[in-house]
């Protein structure tokens, strides 16, 4: 909930000093917004704003308050009750019974899960459901952490930068259990060719997501946690040995090719070095770009709400403020911000906030002097006609961070091994680490924009 200040009511519409139509400006990018015309309205508007922001599918709410309303006095009997979010909505038992039957009859079911699982707080139910019927789980970028990375049933992330194994595995599914997902184009690739042999069962809190992109054989709009609790009670156990044998075969055919350990300074090796040292409860935030995709591919997210990233909107600049927020909420846990030079520059002023608050945020800056994901697209799909992707002027981020009074270090590729990383991660307080990255490094595999998920380029095993 953002409460914003507006010019006095009498000046609205006169192009007053610093007047901007915050209501109109925020309308398409919020769940709802309010322009308050009288202080008495605040008694209803403020609880309504929090109720709206938290209920159902959560979303941002703006309350714009003109200056005269801010200064106005109002008398009232009692304070309004603080807002409570709506209780979770259950699903029709008949739908759940049909869903159990569909799963029971399916030979190659896959759980396709997303951020809705994390919002609903039902990771335990997801694990129970997957284990009970031996259903493998693939996750979207926003769903990472909902199901523990490295679990035998974990297929990893699907989609544009998912692994070859994952995208080929879900292609063979005959039933797609789409839980808390919205069939985002980065996950599905070419929609018409996404899981072509699978019937779809879709559960999401937002009715407008049902059948928006893919028509489902069975769907219900409700809380996915409630749905899973209902489903677990009636779903029989199954070990699905032939489906898992086939998945093992695919795993051998399409192994993930990690860079060799001696390729020190390879971004995936930096990420893996972080993953080996951070605990499951430590929080990782990212910005948007290549570093984000490398982190999604190689960082083992093992618990819900430990992976904070900007998915659908891909808002560069998200990582540092998100890390500050996470560290304020969970000061006892370590918070790591994985970022890129392009993204960090979007909210570089927050280094001052970090220095003010002295929070234990460690910033790992994957610095290639480029807007790398766009550079990669220009290389692969636009005939290497590079435009506006290289920073002609790049700040010295170490000096910059130090000028805010922050500890900062520049690492060399050879530093990828050694104790310095442990020292930084165990030291108190904030720190920025500048990691030089080869600008020619690409994120692979990659599904070409508009292509089907099976048409991945790069990332093959080199025999």
């Amino acid at each position, binding site marked *: 909930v953002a409460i914003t200040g507006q010019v006095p009511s009498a000046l609205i519409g006169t192009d007053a000093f610093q007047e901007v139509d915050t209501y109109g400006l925020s*309308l398409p990018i919020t769940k709802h917004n309010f322009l308050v015309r009288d202080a008495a309205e605040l008694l209803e508007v403020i609880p309504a704003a929090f109720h709206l922001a938290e209920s159902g599918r959560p979303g941002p709410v703006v309350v714009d308050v003109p200056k005269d309303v801010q200064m106005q006095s109002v008398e009232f009997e009692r304070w309004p009750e603080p807002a409570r979010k709506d209780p979770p909505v259950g699903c029709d038992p008949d739908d759940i019974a049909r869903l159990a039957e569909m799963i029971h009859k399916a030979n190659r079911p896959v759980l396709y899960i997303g951020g809705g699982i994390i919002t609903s707080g039902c990771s335990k139910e997801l694990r129970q459901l997957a284990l009970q019927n031996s259903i493998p789980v693939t996750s979207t970028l926003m769903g990472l952490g909902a199901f523990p990375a490295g679990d035998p049933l974990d297929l990893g992330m699907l989609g544009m930068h998912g692994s070859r194994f994952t995208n080929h595995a879900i292609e063979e599914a005959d039933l797609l259990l789409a839980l808390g997902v919205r069939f985002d184009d980065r996950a599905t690739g070419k929609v018409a060719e996404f899981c072509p042999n699978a019937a779809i069962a879709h559960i999401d809190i937002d009715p407008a997501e049902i059948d928006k992109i893919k028509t489902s054989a069975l769907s219900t709009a409700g809380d996915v946690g409630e749905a899973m609790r209902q489903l677990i009670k009636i779903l029989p156990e199954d070990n699905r040995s032939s489906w898992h044998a086939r998945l093992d075969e695919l795993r051998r055919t399409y192994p993930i090719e990690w860079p060799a350990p001696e390729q020190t300074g390879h971004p995936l090796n930096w990420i893996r070095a972080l993953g080996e040292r951070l605990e499951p409860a430590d929080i990782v935030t990212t910005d948007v770009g290549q570093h984000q995709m490398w982190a999604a591919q190689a960082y083992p997210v093992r618990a819900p709400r430990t992976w904070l990233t900007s998915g659908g909107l891909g808002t560069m600049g998200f990582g540092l403020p998100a890390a500050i927020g996470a560290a304020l909420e969970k000061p006892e846990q370590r918070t790591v911000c994985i970022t890129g030079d392009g993204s960090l520059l979007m909210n570089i002023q927050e280094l001052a906030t970090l220095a003010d608050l002295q929070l234990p945020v460690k910033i790992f800056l994957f610095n290639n002097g480029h807007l790398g994901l766009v550079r990669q697209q220009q290389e692969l799909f636009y005939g290497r006609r590079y435009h506006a992707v290289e920073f002609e002027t790049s700040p010295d981020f170490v000096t910059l961070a130090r000028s805010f009074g922050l500890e900062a270090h520049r690492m060399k590729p050879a530093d990828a091994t050694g104790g310095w990383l442990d020292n930084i991660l165990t030291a108190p307080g904030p720190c920025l680490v500048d990691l030089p990255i080869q600008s020619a490094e690409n994120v692979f595999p990659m599904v070409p924009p508009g292509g089907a998920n099976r048409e991945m380029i790069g990332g093959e095993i080199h025999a």
Partner: protein
Amino acid sequence: MRKPVIELLVNNHPGVMSHVTGLFSRRAFNLEGILCGSVGDGKQSKMFLMVNEDRRLPQLLKELAKLHDVMSVQLRHEIDDSIFAPLHAVM
């Protein structure tokens, strides 16, 4: 050819029209005509929206229903789009 008419019951305040028309424009959906007037004690309004036949119409109805100030959404097949005809006299 008759065009579908959507009837909305909405909270009557100055921002409602922006929310409704904003939804149409950002979802790339054509809005052919609007009739609007307050009902009852003036706290609510009814809006009649003339649209084109479109396979995305069910999706649009779901999006309209999600707007906080929209109380109800109905596709009024029985309403003739001739309710918009008097507009021609002034245009």
